[in-house]
């Protein structure tokens, strides 16, 4: 027993001692790492004095000084080897290696600045583009929605057949009040079904009246999202009742602006639309800004009031609610959709006159908010990844060339005892240094270009204000940089280290051709590059063609030099049709009197506003198809609307001053409606049922686009404002030149009529039209930039390979020419070789494009994804550019004097 105990103790002691020794060794190595230069010097001194001592002893033994010196060295053994082993023992081998490789890499890169700059710049382009696009994807798509358990949130829409569209096409429309109540009660998958109506409220507490974006929400809206007011309280269910006192929740921005962030704002009164509201709370800063803009149909919201809801007599026909809900824990989109379908089918049978053809759609909240942007952003991310891939191939190509040039050096190092692993390590270090330089430069590029980039984002992209280079973007960039480094660095490193010592050293005096395998790899790289850039170019070309087609679409009116703005007369002063029509008549007289105004009109809503108005109508005497809902885009216009916007009247007349309250109701319809309702007949004098009244069709106007340039012709109806006025209208004034110049005068005239009347939504009509194709413009522009970059990179790659090839074969060309080859033959030989690569790339690229451009299908207008014109144009472009890239180095080679070429090596 005792012996056993002792044994145990010695074992433990032993173990302890060994641990201490290990630790000590580790620490001294760490220490050595920090003062390696000092230790190098110490060792040199020590060896020197060792040799001196030895020499002295030999001299004492009778050696001559020279012999003593030699003998001392001999008995010491290899000084260099000693130092090398010493270094190995001294510190962590790999760290030391890394340090030396780094230093070596930096030195060699520094010595070839041309190569380094091209490589770093290439990488910076690829990495920078990725960082930029990813920062947008990150902020817009990857950041979770700022609500509790957002995966369970859904948006609900009603659907109806597209008016005048082909069969089966359905549009998503807002929800009617009664559908909202039915869904809330009858869909067991949904809990907390909430409704929202966006509206603008006139705030009159400031220096001048202001239109504030607001939303009326049901009391369960905030609990459904899982968002609570930062200060104060949420709405109570009883505040939804019609006669409850007005209460309002402030957005953080509004609170800061109007109350300088003072918490005592709660309980104070606020006058909105001339009515008093009590402030009951403030929402957190994250809520209501552009960050949750997607929840509501328009821009940011700053005020929330309770939505007044009365189930009894809720309208089935008027659709203006945005409805959101939370799925119950075990419910899915599919179960919810099935339930909504059942409800809608029943309603269709029960209320055929309002619900015929109507359906419902359940979408995830993310889909509802980002559906539009998502595909564009993923597409762009795909495109930049391709650009990065091309950049990688380019750098790999450069590295291959370098490895070949340096094969003599490599062979020498191998001969001197460098292991293959060390050689690979060293090449690889060089690639990593390049990568990190490229990564740093790329991040700088991304950082510098981010603001420009955000400014070209279409304005309806949600959350774009939070786009920034944050930790996640940095991590992503580092990750792709590392991947990049491995992609382009490993193969050349492997091949570089794969030196046949004998062959290389023997050939070292003459530049070797780099071997068939290596050339083949480099050719493959060029072919791939050409193919990839072809894919990007085709994509960009298709989008460009589609964009040009889209921009060339005639909207049916002339948007040039027209300023438009929204006039919001208050409900109190302009509550009746008489006061409204009187106001607009006066307003138009005033505005037309402004010097520089050619014509002016009021219209609700102005084409390409953020919303359109739809109105159902009847055609008396026309048999109604079951399931057909007649609905048309509806505008209330002043008599000179058609003249001011230069919309053609094709039959009958436009409205006049005589079409006013009390005179027989009239309407003007577009050609599509006329043809569809009364085919082969004159529409003039026909009756049109609108609401309770019947109007007489007095004229026909040419179709116009109301919201989208790429939409099919829709049914459209206009009625005169003097006859069927509405409170809020848009003023549209055409100037003889720049219409923005008219704005101060217009403001002044409007204020002179009524100082308390707020204006909003001011924009040139041209801007509105351009804004409607902002998404397409953005996608086209970016893809064009990326494709251009890709083309440039591919050309550089091709040029590099050709130049290199030519340089390698200068001697051969010299011989050929000495033997009587003509300049043309040599040119043909070289250009032919290059063009073979280009052609192979084109063939591959066309095949890949045919497969890949399908993803563009949904984004194209009037262009097919396989559009032959685009394909041919892009191929021609690439071939021409490629030919130039081959021709330049070829000419250089062909011009070489055979004698010089032969002596060159």
């Amino acid at each position, binding site marked *: 027993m005792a012996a056993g105990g002792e044994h145990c103790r010695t074992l433990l002691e032993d173990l302890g*001692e060994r641990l*201490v*020794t290990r630790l*000590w*060794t580790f620490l*001294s*190595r760490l220490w050595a790492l920090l003062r390696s230069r000092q230790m190098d010097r*110490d*060792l040199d*001194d*020590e*060896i020197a*004095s*060792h040799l*001196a*001592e*030895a020499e*002295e*002893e030999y001299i004492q033994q009778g050696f001559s000084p020279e012999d003593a010196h030699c003998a001392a060295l001999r*008995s*010491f*053994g*290899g*000084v260099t*080897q*000693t130092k090398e*082993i*010493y270094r*190995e*023992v*001294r510190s962590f081998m790999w760290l030391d290696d890394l340090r030396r490789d780094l230093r070596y890499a930096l030195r060699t890169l520094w010595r070839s600045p041309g190569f380094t700059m091209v490589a770093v710049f290439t990488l910076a382009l690829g990495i920078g583009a990725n960082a930029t696009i990813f920062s947008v994807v990150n902020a817009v798509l990857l950041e979770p929605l700022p609500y509790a358990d957002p995966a369970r949130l859904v948006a609900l829409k009603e659907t109806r057949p597209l008016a005048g569209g082909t069969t089966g096409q359905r549009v998503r429309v807002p929800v009617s009040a009664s559908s909202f109540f039915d869904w809330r009660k009858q869909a067991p998958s949904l809990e907390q079904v909430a409704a929202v109506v966006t509206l603008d409220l006139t705030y009159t507490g400031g220096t001048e009246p202001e239109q504030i974006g607001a939303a009326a929400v049901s009391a369960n809206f905030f609990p459904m999202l899982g968002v609570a007011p930062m200060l104060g309280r949420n709405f109570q269910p009883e505040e939804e009742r019609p006669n409850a006192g007005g209460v309002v929740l402030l957005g953080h921005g509004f609170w800061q602006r109007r109350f300088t962030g003072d918490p005592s704002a709660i309980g104070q009164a606020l006058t909105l639309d001339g009515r008093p509201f009590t402030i009951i709370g403030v929402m957190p800063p994250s809520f209501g800004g552009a960050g949750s803009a997607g929840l509501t149909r328009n821009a940011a919201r700053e005020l929330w009031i309770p939505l007044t809801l009365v189930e009894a007599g809720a309208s089935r026909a008027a659709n203006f609610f945005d409805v959101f809900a939370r799925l119950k824990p075990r419910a899915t989109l599919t179960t919810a959709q099935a339930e909504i379908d059942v409800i809608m089918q029943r309603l269709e049978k029960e209320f055929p006159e309002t619900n015929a053809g109507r359906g419902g759609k359940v979408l995830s909240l993310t889909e509802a908010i980002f559906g539009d942007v998502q595909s564009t952003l993923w597409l762009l991310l795909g495109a930049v990844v391709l650009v990065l891939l091309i950049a990688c191939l380019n750098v790999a190509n450069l590295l291959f060339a370098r490895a070949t040039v340096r094969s003599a050096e490599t062979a020498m190092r191998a001969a001197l005892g460098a292991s293959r692993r060390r050689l690979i390590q060293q090449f690889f270090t060089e690639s990593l240094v390049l990568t990190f330089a490229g990564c740093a430069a790329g991040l700088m590029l991304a950082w510098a270009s981010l603001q420009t980039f955000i400014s070209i984002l279409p304005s309806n992209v949600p959350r774009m204000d939070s786009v920034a280079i944050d930790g996640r973007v940095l991590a992503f960039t580092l990750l792709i940089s590392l991947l990049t480094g491995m992609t382009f660095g490993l193969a050349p490193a492997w091949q570089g280290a794969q030196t046949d010592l004998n062959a290389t050293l023997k050939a070292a005096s003459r530049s070797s051709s780099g071997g068939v395998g290596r050339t083949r790899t480099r050719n493959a790289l060029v072919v791939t590059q050409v193919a990839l850039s072809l894919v990007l170019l085709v994509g960009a070309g298709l989008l460009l063609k589609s964009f040009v087609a889209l921009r060339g679409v005639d909207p049916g009116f002339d948007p040039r030099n027209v300023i438009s703005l929204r006039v919001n007369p208050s409900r109190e002063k302009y509550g009746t049709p008489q006061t409204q029509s009187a106001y607009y008549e006066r307003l138009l007289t005033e505005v037309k009197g402004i010097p520089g105004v050619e014509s002016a009109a009021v219209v609700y809503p102005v084409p390409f506003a953020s919303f359109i108005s739809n109105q159902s109508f009847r055609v008396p005497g026309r048999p109604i198809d079951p399931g057909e809902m007649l609905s048309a885009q509806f505008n209330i216009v002043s008599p000179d609307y058609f003249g001011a916007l230069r919309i053609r009247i094709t039959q009958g007349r436009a409205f006049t001053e005589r079409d006013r309250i009390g005179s027989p109701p009239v309407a003007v319809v577009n050609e599509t409606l006329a043809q569809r309702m009364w085919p082969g007949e004159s529409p003039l004098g026909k009756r049109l049922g609108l609401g309770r009244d019947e109007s007489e069709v007095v004229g026909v106007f040419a179709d116009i686009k109301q919201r989208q340039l790429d939409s099919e012709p829709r049914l459209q109806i206009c009625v005169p404002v003097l006859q069927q006025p509405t409170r809020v209208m848009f003023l549209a004034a055409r100037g003889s030149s720049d219409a923005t110049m008219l704005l101060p005068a217009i403001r002044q005239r409007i204020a002179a009529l009524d100082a308390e009347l707020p204006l909003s939504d001011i924009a040139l009509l041209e801007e509105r039209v351009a804004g409607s194709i902002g998404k397409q413009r953005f996608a086209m522009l970016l893809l064009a930039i990326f494709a251009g970059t890709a083309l440039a990179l591919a050309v550089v790659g091709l040029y590099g390979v050709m130049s290199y090839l030519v340089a390698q074969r200068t001697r051969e060309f010299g011989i050929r020419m000495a033997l009587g080859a003509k300049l043309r033959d040599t040119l043909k030989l070289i250009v032919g070789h290059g063009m073979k690569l280009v052609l192979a790339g084109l063939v591959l690229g066309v095949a890949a494009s045919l497969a890949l451009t399908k993803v563009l299908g949904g984004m194209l207008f009037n262009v097919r994804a396989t559009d032959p014109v685009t394909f041919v144009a892009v191929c021609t472009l690439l071939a021409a550019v490629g030919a130039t890239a081959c021709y330049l180095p070829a000419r250089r080679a062909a011009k070489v004097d055979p004698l010089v070429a032969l002596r060159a090596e």
Partner: protein
Amino acid sequence: MMPDKSDVLYGTLDLMVIKTLEALGPLHGYRIARRIEQISGNQLALNQGTLYPALLKLEQMGWISSRWGKSESGRRVRIYALTRAGRNQLHQEEAQWLRAANIVGRFLKISENVS
């Protein structure tokens, strides 16, 4: 790859170094090298250079310490001395070596008898 001979050499060299330092007290590198050569009766073809990595390793393990000093001829040299940990280590290794040498010696004797 050639088999790594240096480890074997280091192992024995380590022992020789610390034994030398125990016997003669602090010494500089050249003296240690010469002493080892003399003791081995010049049978050991020592590359004197290999001593220095061995010295470094011993120092890293804490068995010897070093300081800069002057040689007999007045040169600036690094002088190595045995530490207490080194002395312990020496005793252990000495015992082990003797045991091992004993066994090998006996083994060789038996083989001689058999033949």
